[in-house]
């Protein structure tokens, strides 16, 4: 069944195996991530991409250094614009606040613009439990909502589905006649969604960035659904992660440029919606009331724990598109709202209840492609290393790791033990390799993870140091003592 849905709370290994065995998933991921990476490189090289990255980085560093003051500035400007501001310590508080707003306004139907923050707090679930309908209005989100699954990418939620799969979902859920024409599919979804916008009582969005000096919420979309969500319904609520703010309007456009070029490779997106408050007297349209919910949910703790760098993320998804791990397993295998390299860093730091979250910092070969793609130059491999370090410090290292590391260091600490271990491994591996055509085809657990799919060479019968010593011996007999005496001196440490 190509449209089957994965269980996000399954154990880590199960999620990964599911992805690795899913041919369609890997086809879809390979196509889309490759295309998005090429587009990003083209868009970033069309301008002075390095300078842009440096500027955005400086700006985000400034934001973190002046975080509390900027948040308060944003709050007071929003209030001055007639917006009601709420502070939520965690997901439960944020859900309670939004539910309360909806109940007071007697809301039956909520229309949503694509928002990772609302996914993070599982807002749809809360609203539906309270008897309201929540409709996703981003095309990708709409499709996966129809198929009852969460997004698998920060900016491209349905990246894990091929066009063929999407057609199947639409045929099954919306009685679409069989077609593979994206325009037909789009037109169908558009007609359905327009009705939802016209009948919704409340619009909920996230916030790509908020401008502190003017009290403005900015939404970046290509479909215009952000603008409809923030202007058509009676009530408009924006849920904002507290790190997503910029000081000035100039900074907003700096971040906007970096975001467009890094996420979809566009110079600008089709829409940039800037909302600074509810409908004023004399305005033709706009919501009657507007709320902004500041969501902490572990973000200030991240700064305290030394992971402030990850708070500079602008959620462009570039690190996902270039990640060789993400490309093979997709977003759902991470089991978290946030996937890819940035997801592996922040999921263990945010209280999101991800199953086997401790495995995520290890789901990387530390190849560094993410850091090279990041428009804010976040040193993601370094943050992953720091998380692994934290795990060990907190005694969460796996038993196998601890034992292996102890043995490893004891061996490597002493030249004698190192040479003996090498000799022993030489004898053992050569003996085994003799029975399997020169290479090891099997190793005992846990090393069999290697030999399940790969050969391993036997250790050398004569190590480099032995060959070196023999070579030096031969030279001594040829050249006299001059060369070797120098080498000996070097060895006496």
């Amino acid at each position, binding site marked *: 069944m190509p449209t089957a849905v994965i269980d996000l709370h399954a154990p880590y290994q199960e999620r990964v*195996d599911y992805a*690795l065995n899913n041919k369609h998933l890997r086809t879809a991921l390979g196509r889309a991530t490759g295309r998005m990476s090429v587009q990003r490189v083209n868009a970033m090289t069309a301008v002075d991409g390095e300078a842009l990255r440096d500027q955005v980085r400086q700006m985000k560093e400034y934001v973190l250094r002046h975080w509390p003051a900027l948040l308060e500035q944003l709050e007071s400007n929003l209030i001055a614009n007639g917006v009601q501001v709420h502070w939520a310590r965690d997901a439960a508080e944020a859900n309670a606040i939004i539910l309360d707003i909806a109940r007071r306004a007697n809301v039956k139907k909520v229309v949503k613009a694509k928002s990772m923050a609302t996914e993070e707090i599982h807002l749809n679930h809360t609203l539906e439990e309270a008897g309201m309908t929540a409709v996703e209005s981003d095309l990708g989100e709409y499709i996966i909502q129809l198929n009852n699954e969460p997004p698998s990418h920060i900016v491209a939620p349905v990246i894990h589905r091929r066009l063929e799969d999407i057609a199947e979902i639409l045929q099954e859920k919306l009685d679409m006649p069989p077609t593979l024409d994206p325009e037909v599919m789009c037109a169908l979804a558009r007609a359905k969604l327009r009705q939802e916008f016209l009948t919704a009582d409340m619009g909920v969005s996230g916030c790509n960035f908020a401008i502190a000096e003017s009290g403005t919420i900015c939404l970046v979309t290509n479909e215009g659904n952000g603008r409809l969500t923030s202007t058509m319904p009676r009530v408009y609520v924006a849920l904002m992660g507290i790190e997503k703010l910029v000081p000035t309007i100039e900074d907003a456009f700096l971040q906007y440029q970096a975001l467009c070029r890094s996420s979809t490779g566009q110079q600008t997106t089709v829409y940039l919606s800037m909302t600074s408050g509810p409908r004023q007297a004399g305005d033709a349209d706009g919501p009657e009331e507007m709320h902004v919910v500041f969501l902490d949910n572990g973000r200030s703790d991240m700064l305290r724990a030394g992971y402030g760098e990850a708070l500079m993320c602008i959620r462009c998804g570039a690190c996902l598109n270039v990640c*060789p*791990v993400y490309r*093979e397993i997709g977003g759902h295998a991470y089991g978290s709202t946030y996937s890819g390299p940035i997801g592996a860093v922040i999921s263990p730091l945010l209280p999101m209840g991800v199953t086997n979250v401790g495995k995520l910092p*290890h789901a990387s*070969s*530390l*190849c*560094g*492609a993410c850091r*090279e793609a990041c428009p804010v130059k976040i040193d993601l491999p370094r943050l992953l*290393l720091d*998380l*692994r*370090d*934290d*795990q*060990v410090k907190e005694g969460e*290292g796996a038993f196998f*790791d601890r034992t292996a*590391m102890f043995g*490893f*260091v004891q*061996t*490597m*600490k002493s*030249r004698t033990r*190192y040479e003996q271990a*090498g000799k022993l*491994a*030489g004898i053992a591996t050569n003996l085994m390799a003799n029975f399997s*055509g020169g*290479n090891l085809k099997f190793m005992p657990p*846990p090393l069999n*993870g*290697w030999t*399940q*799919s*790969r*050969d*391993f*060479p*036997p*250790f*050398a019968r*004569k*190590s*480099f*140091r032995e*060959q*070196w*010593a023999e*070579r030096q011996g031969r030279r001594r007999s040829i050249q006299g003592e001059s060369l070797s005496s*120098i*080498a000996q*001196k*070097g*060895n006496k*440490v």
Partner: protein
Amino acid sequence: MHKKQFTNRPGRVALFVTCMVDMIYPAVGMATVELLERLGVETIFPTEQTCCGQPAFNAGYRDEARTLAERFINIFEPLVRNNQVDAIVVPSGSCATMTSHFYTVLFEDQPASPLYKRAQTLAAVTFELTEFLVDVLGVSDVGSRFQGKVTYHACCHLLRELKIDQQPRQLLANIPGAEVVELNEAADCCGFGGLFAIKNAGISTAMGQRKTRNLAASDADIVALCDVSCMTHINGLLNRQAQRCRAVHIAEVLNSQVDVAEREPSVPVTTPERAPRRWQDVKE
């Protein structure tokens, strides 16, 4: 990272051969030594050396990594300080990254400690092999010969931590007889990643298989690279898939003096041919 600028051509270097080369691939170490000596650089091999501690550091075991880092510094730093050697040469991008980048990370929270300063001293004179040949010695043609189709895989630490890419490519391009072809997705990780290859064997294999697919498409006889760890991973897969192409460390390619006269016919990927191991296996 600040690197020492040499006014005189370095005449003597210490070889940090890395534990994998020492114990599994001694030929790579010997090729490195021969190559350097052929270019007039004398090599010494401090025999106390073992492992740089990268596996521990990457797994988050920083105390253990610090133990091995301190040991490494105690072996190599006095050689530099007492001018017994001009530089340290490492035939590995990954281990060169560990000793020149991550040692300073290990001691960065104690910037006043002598170990931090000594680690920095070491970092300034530690060079990956191809970096040393091209940037320090100014050599771009080492006078080797190789007949066949060669491609190049850019190892992650080498490319993205040490920013070394043009040096090995330049050296390969100057080998007479070698037809250098570009590898598709050459800069993508091969999936090794140390313990990652065992802890996440499935993902690691999938990444490696993408690499070997690209290798098959390149039709190269060998893929040259600067790390024996990645070489082990790629060859492990190529062997299992019975592909003709092999990963070869660049030191061996640059030290090669052989003409491979004729290319062997390529073996189809799907039908690995195994010679019968025992007489019982031979079917009439």
